[in-house]
């Protein structure tokens, strides 16, 4: 742990940390489990889709579509992208839109997965996205993604639950809740989402410094 720059008050450069982890780690990404000749067959794989398995390669960055095929139609995908942007607009002009960060791909991965935990979301999300386009057509004669912002808001306001939701929009509200849960989960898991929410961890430090004076003051502990 030598060679920590003096001006770097305890913050260790991530690259330096990766060096400690060792060059071996890089090799592992290519040839990880040389001795695992005994992989067992995973249970009930979905047709055409691979499950995660009991011994997946962990030291690898996965992207949606790596394990199982994505199944939203191009039209559904477009509506999903547009709705993520409406729910999670950028804080700063230089920030990216959620759709540019690929949040809709995560939602697609989720609803396309072979897992029971996600299966119940599949009809909710796909039917909800179809409804969204149909509702946009009914009100404004365009698909949702093509609407102007106030038009999108007119629909979202009816189903987002901030004010009382009319009976005929109950299933749309259910869709919106679930969609927002997934969109927010995907978005806040990106580096930009971390910044938005004020998460500054996953960074190696020499010491654990504990709360800042400001944080202590905030809690009446200073």
């Amino acid at each position, binding site marked *: 742990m030598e060679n920590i720059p003096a001006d770097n008050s305890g913050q260790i450069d991530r690259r330096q940390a990766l060096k400690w982890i060792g060059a*071996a780690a890089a090799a592992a990404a290519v040839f990880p489990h040389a*001795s695992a000749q005994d992989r067992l067959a995973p249970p009930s794989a979905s047709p055409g889709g691979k499950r995660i398995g009991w011994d997946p390669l962990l*030291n690898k960055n*996965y992207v949606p579509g790596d394990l199982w095929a994505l199944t939203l139609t191009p039209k559904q995908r477009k509506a999903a992208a547009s709705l993520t942007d409406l729910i999670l607009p950028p804080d700063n002009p230089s920030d990216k839109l959620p759709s540019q960060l690929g949040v809709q791909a995560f939602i697609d991965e989720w609803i396309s997965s072979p897992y029971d935990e996600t299966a119940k979301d599949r009809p909710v999300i796909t039917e909800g996205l179809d409804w969204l386009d149909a509702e946009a057509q009914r009100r404004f004669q365009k698909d949702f993604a093509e609407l102007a912002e106030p038009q999108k808001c007119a629909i979202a306001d009816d189903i987002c639950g901030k004010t009382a939701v009319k009976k005929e929009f109950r299933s749309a509200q259910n869709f919106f809740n679930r969609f927002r849960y997934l969109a927010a989960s995907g978005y806040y898991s990106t580096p930009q989402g971390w910044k938005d929410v004020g998460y500054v961890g*996953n960074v*190696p430090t020499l010491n654990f410094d504990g*709360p800042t004076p400001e944080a202590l003051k905030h809690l009446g502990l200073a």
Partner: protein
Amino acid sequence: MAIITEKDLQPNYDVIVVGSGAGGGQSAYTLTMNGVKVLMLEAGRNYDPVTETPMFQSKADAPLLGMGTREKPFGFHDATVDGGWEVPGEPYTQASTDPKQRFDWWRARMLGGRTNHWGRISLRNGPYDFKPYSRDGLGFDWPLSYEDVAPYYDKVEMLVGVYGSNEGLENTPDSPNGTLLPPPKARAGELYVKKHVAKFGIPVIPIHRAILSTRQDHVNFPARLHPNNPKAQKIIAKAMQERAACFWATDCGRGCSIKANYQSTTVHLPPALATGNLDILCNAHAREVTVGADGKANGVIYIDKVTGQERAVKGRAVILAASSGETARILLNSKSNRFPNGLANGSGLVGKYIMDTVGAGLGGSVPAFENLPVHNEEGAGTHVYIPWWLYKDASKLGFARGYHIEFGTGRRMPGLGTGGASPGYGKSYKEEVRQKYGAGIGFAGRGEMIPNEDSFCELDPTVKDKWGIPVLRFHWKWSEHETKQAAHMEATFAMMIEAIGGKTRTPQADGSKAIDTGGRIIHEVGGAIMGANAKKSVANQWNQCWEVPNLLLNDGSAFCSNADKNPTLTIMALAWRATDHLIEEMRKGNL
């Protein structure tokens, strides 16, 4: 000697160790450092944390943001390989369909076992914890005392590296000066809880965890660990220097590629291998211990999982450390004319008195934590805890024994569910997400279960695993001591959440509903209890089977009580002590 394949097996070993987790790792370490030739059989595959650990991967780098799945119940990145609540091809069964009588069995099939992904909480049992029967007439006294184990706690703490502090509290032992590593600072929310629960007499103190907050004292520790053994000192001094200090950034449950926390695979096995006295054979599933004409253990029959073939190896002594349930299973499956009911089972107690930890939890949201000024609160998991504080009230509580409280707050890595509870959308929604992020708290009670007649395992009469080996069938029942304790936990958590101005649900007054399912806390111990009387126990105070003195049970199976303190530090201390005794007995020619 090294991690070997079958063709390199020696015809004979001094000792065969089954299992490579906390118990097996410690046993192999102690033996090989003393020049004993060891073969370790491990059912799982070879596993190398240095190359395999996903250290800085974000949740977004995992499928489904790392969601827990059937194959990876604690999340994608968790360091469990070929295991979890189920292991393909290796079932276990329940004697009852009543959900309250279930026992859920967590297993890992990998080199290092559960030590790769455990929580690293490393608390010593106190003096009371070894003599519970003498204090309240329930359960069993151990055939040893805190003073017998203390020197081994000291050694294990120095060897594996444990952070924590000495607080001088009742039945919460201090370590000798210079043994523990400094504890990390408490987080903002942890300090807030400490301040607001003090009025109830509830202490919030640094927890002890097997994490290198600083590097180990590789100059002084080796001589304290291995007096008069220069070779061992040299090897462990070098091994200590190969471990880095924690950099407070990543999730220890994924394992640690810089060896800053304790896993058998990074701490016990490398120096043991460096002695040249250890062979490790992976993918070798022990089926039974074999016995010679003299009634002593003389080897192990195992399944080579690569070929599916049955094989036999020979040793002068055998140590089982396959996790307590699996150790009981191996004993029960080791039937011979001399031992028709399973090896070392003349007492009929093999499989009996299995225990887990009493668990209950309650979470809440805390407005005071909202909009906390941004700072880094990661830092390697739990920093503080609440030890049991009501020893003086024992007669008023309505249940025996006690529990400690683990709790979590803080601005941790966002993932599934971040932003979930806020209404609306757009800028106002994002504002609220920001406000609420990190404003939660979760309390978990971890309490003592008293061994009982209704909680045991036996061989299932019909079900076998994929190699044809009979599997375990579990019987489970909590007594009122445990369920009332769980209700007490919930009421305490609600009181504390209220004291910090937080919101939560109504606490569950029915303890049988509050308590977690048996096995769920994964503090599996018992099943071959130790005692002072050969008729009423399976092993003596040195984990030595009464009927087969060259057979040791060095995992948690010989525990005859399960204090609220998490068991692993004690497993390691007792394994070290038992192994020292074994070496002595072998040297004297007694075995």
